[in-house]
């Protein structure tokens, strides 16, 4: 048979569109379960611990190093007025971009993969089927608590990442660059600090939702034993990371004049 490039391209784009369609339907069903009762509170709180609390070390470590290295980079690129410029730029960079994006990417590794593996294992051992036969809907019992927990705890994590990241910047400035500590803090506390932080926190909530939904979606689609579960975890991390970066761009341009 002659290789027909149009057929191949057509097939690939059909597959991509139907995947996007399935993900959209899945997201709609899960969000509906998140917004209407009953909500399984026990599951929700235990997921908040797993997703939020136990991610603190990862997020904190990331933030402190990124804050410090960002401040150093800005200092190196600044010729005068560094004491004014370094904190001003750092606070924007950390609260609006690096805090939420890096925390989200770290959580994509930790949480998306974990959720996909957990749900994937439940799928291949027929636990999801068992839920159905016991009249419990997986979107309510499994997916909604995870999505709610990630969406609501992610902003808290990012707020902490912002504070820790600025501490990192502050430390490098005071310890290595001989800045005055109080001046640094005064420059951080500008008039639009609230806007900057809020933009970051809105992004954080969206990223949290993406992280949990990708984990649930790939997990619930896994098939074929342990290999399938591993593949689901990989697909969840990659999918979540791509969607985080793409939606970050969209939100940055939406909020550009905020």
């Amino acid at each position: 048979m002659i290789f027909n490039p149009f057929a191949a391209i057509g097939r690939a784009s059909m597959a991509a569109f139907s995947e996007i369609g399935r993900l959209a339907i899945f997201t709609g069903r899960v969000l509906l379960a998140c917004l209407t009762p009953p909500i399984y509170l026990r599951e929700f709180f235990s997921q908040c611990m797993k997703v939020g609390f136990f991610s603190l070390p990862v997020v904190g470590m990331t933030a402190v190093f990124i804050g410090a290295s960002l401040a150093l980079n800005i200092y190196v690129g600044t010729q005068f007025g560094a004491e004014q410029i370094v904190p001003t730029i750092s606070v924007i960079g950390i609260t609006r971009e690096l805090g939420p994006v890096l925390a989200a990417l770290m959580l994509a590794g930790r949480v998306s993969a974990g959720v996909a593996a957990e749900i994937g294992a439940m799928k291949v051992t027929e636990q999801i089927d068992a839920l159905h036969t016991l009249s419990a809907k997986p979107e309510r019992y499994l997916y909604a608590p995870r999505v709610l927990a990630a969406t609501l705890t992610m902003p808290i994590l990012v707020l902490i990442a912002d504070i820790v990241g600025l501490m990192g910047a502050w430390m490098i400035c005071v310890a290595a660059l001989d800045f005055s500590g109080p001046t640094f803090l005064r420059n951080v506390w500008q008039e639009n600090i609230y806007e900057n932080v809020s933009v970051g926190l809105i992004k954080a909530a969206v990223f949290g939702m993406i992280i949990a939904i990708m984990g649930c979606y790939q997990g619930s689609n896994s098939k074929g034993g342990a290999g399938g579960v591993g593949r689901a975890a990989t697909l969840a991390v990659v999918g979540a990371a791509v969607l985080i970066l793409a939606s970050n761009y969209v939100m940055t341009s939406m909020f550009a004049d905020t």
Partner: protein
Amino acid sequence: MTDNSKTLLELRNIYKSFGPKHVLQGFDLSVAPGQSVVIIGGSGTGKSVSIKCALGLLKPDSGEIYFDGEKQDSAKAVARIRERTGMLFQGGALFDSLKVWENVSFTLTQNQKMSRKDARDAAIETLKKVRLGASVADQRPAELSGGMQKRVALARAIISKPDLIFFDEPTTGLDPITADAVNDLIREQVQALGAAAVTITHDMASVRKIADDVAMLYDGKIIWRGPVDRLDDSGNEYIDQFVHGRADGPIQPSM
């Protein structure tokens, strides 16, 4: 006992394929209230698939399913059959993130909104029926042996007092003594509940112990069905080969 004037579950002319693999091709089954039907058949012939279709876990390509006279063609109807049936999965399918008692009383806490304390008591009560002590209640499924897991899964399947219970290979992987005990439990609990049962098994000892009727699945269809005491003089060469476990005969071993 068996009331043949009514059927509780009926599967009519079910077809189900996975890609090029045609698994069920005109599968029929009817189960009367209180009746115990055992499905036998070779590995990979679609026994598990047939009961997953009955419970709406898989969607047949064509065919009709009725439960208590109601056609299973809407989400509501499927929800009703699930409320009134219990299922013991081939691999147990216990929730490994929950304790044993939380597994057993899952429908009580999740659907009937029973308090956790009452549910725990009910779970321990039901565990007693499957000869498990209260000490396992707070363990995780992974800490139990295979036979204990089967019994926990059995407890989970019967706790809501269903009208119909599906058992998918309840004795596979158990030693003969435990297997026999599980068979006794099934017989005893099904009779205590007055429930109908559909059991899948390869184990002829199980068949003789728990079946009222036996149905043999071969090549996507039920090729023989009859009362268990006709098993040895069915006059059907497929049944004969299966019952006596011979490699030569009309059925090719699946290797």
